């Protein structure tokens, strides 16, 4: 895929979860988040897995489940800047206290932990990628998903998610922390019935914060009447255009 060119695709369906947010107006208006709220779990999630789902994993399951097309399993691109790093921090802190590390906590702290739980819950044996985009925001997930579509997959599910980092980590002067847990799932294809979009490089040099913030920007763009959204973080900038 030549990224100096624009790539057309269609958003067939999308669904998002953040605590206390439910309507288009909520996403648009920056409604106050109900931080304590937990995402409801889809009935599909087996009981033995449910106990292992963190608040972030529940948000992912909730958002992705609302994007499903019947029982069809799709290749998935997960993308998260921080993943379950708060869990890793808890483990490190318990090690510091001389406590033994819980094998369960360890298994759920790795960056692809949620994707693993998801693939088990839905018996999904398709190609699944988990991106840690660092400072590069949500664009790498789109590049990966569009690449899969070019490789003749007819549809790809994307799930972008992040939660606020523990206070332990310095957040200033970096724009890397979102205001709440958030998961956005998008089912996309190269063409089809849905919202037609065009993805391309943008020459603009801009700073829109990192992944956790860009998810909210993209969500606002999805529900708004805006035609174009540009997002960048120092190095590269990208544009999404509603055709």
């Amino acid at each position: 895929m030549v990224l100096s060119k624009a790539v057309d695709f269609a958003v067939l369906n999308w669904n998002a979860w953040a605590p206390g947010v439910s309507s288009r107006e909520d996403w648009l208006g920056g409604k106050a988040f109900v931080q304590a709220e937990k995402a409801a779990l889809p009935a599909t999630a087996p009981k033995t897995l449910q106990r292992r789902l963190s608040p972030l994993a529940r948000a992912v399951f909730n958002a992705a489940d609302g994007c499903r097309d019947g029982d069809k399993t799709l290749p998935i691109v997960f993308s998260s800047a921080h993943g379950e790093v708060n869990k890793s921090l808890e483990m490190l802190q318990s090690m510091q206290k001389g406590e033994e590390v819980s094998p369960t906590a360890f298994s759920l702290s790795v960056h692809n932990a949620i994707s693993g739980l998801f693939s088990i819950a839905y018996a999904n044996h398709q190609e699944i990628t988990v991106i840690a985009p660092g400072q590069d925001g949500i664009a790498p997930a789109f590049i990966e998903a569009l690449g899969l579509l070019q490789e003749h997959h007819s549809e790809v599910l994307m799930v972008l998610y992040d939660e606020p980092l523990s206070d332990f980590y310095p957040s200033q002067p970096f724009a890397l922390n979102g205001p709440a847990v958030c998961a956005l799932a998008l089912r996309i294809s190269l063409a089809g019935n849905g919202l037609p979009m065009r993805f391309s490089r943008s020459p603009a040099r801009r700073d829109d914060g990192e992944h956790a913030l860009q998810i909210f920007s993209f969500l606002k763009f999805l529900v708004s009447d805006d035609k174009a959204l540009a997002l960048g973080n120092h190095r590269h900038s990208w544009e999404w255009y509603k055709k």
Partner: protein
Amino acid sequence: MENELKQLIIDTLELEDISVADIDSHAPLFNDGLGLDSIDALELGLAIRKKYDVKIDAEKEDAVKIFSSVSTLAEYIQAARG
């Protein structure tokens, strides 16, 4: 001992909907029975070591036998503690 172990299993593995009475001492703990998996076995091994100071080596061949039910687990712990 068996009931104490059942409570330990429930607490350690966060089996919210299950009570001591629901666990059959002779039923398999893994796969078919309670539906536990290998990570649960490691977690349970750690909890048993902490509580009873008994180490069950997961690599040892008889680990599968020891973990097969609450009853076999209780027997092993009692024998190991002397």
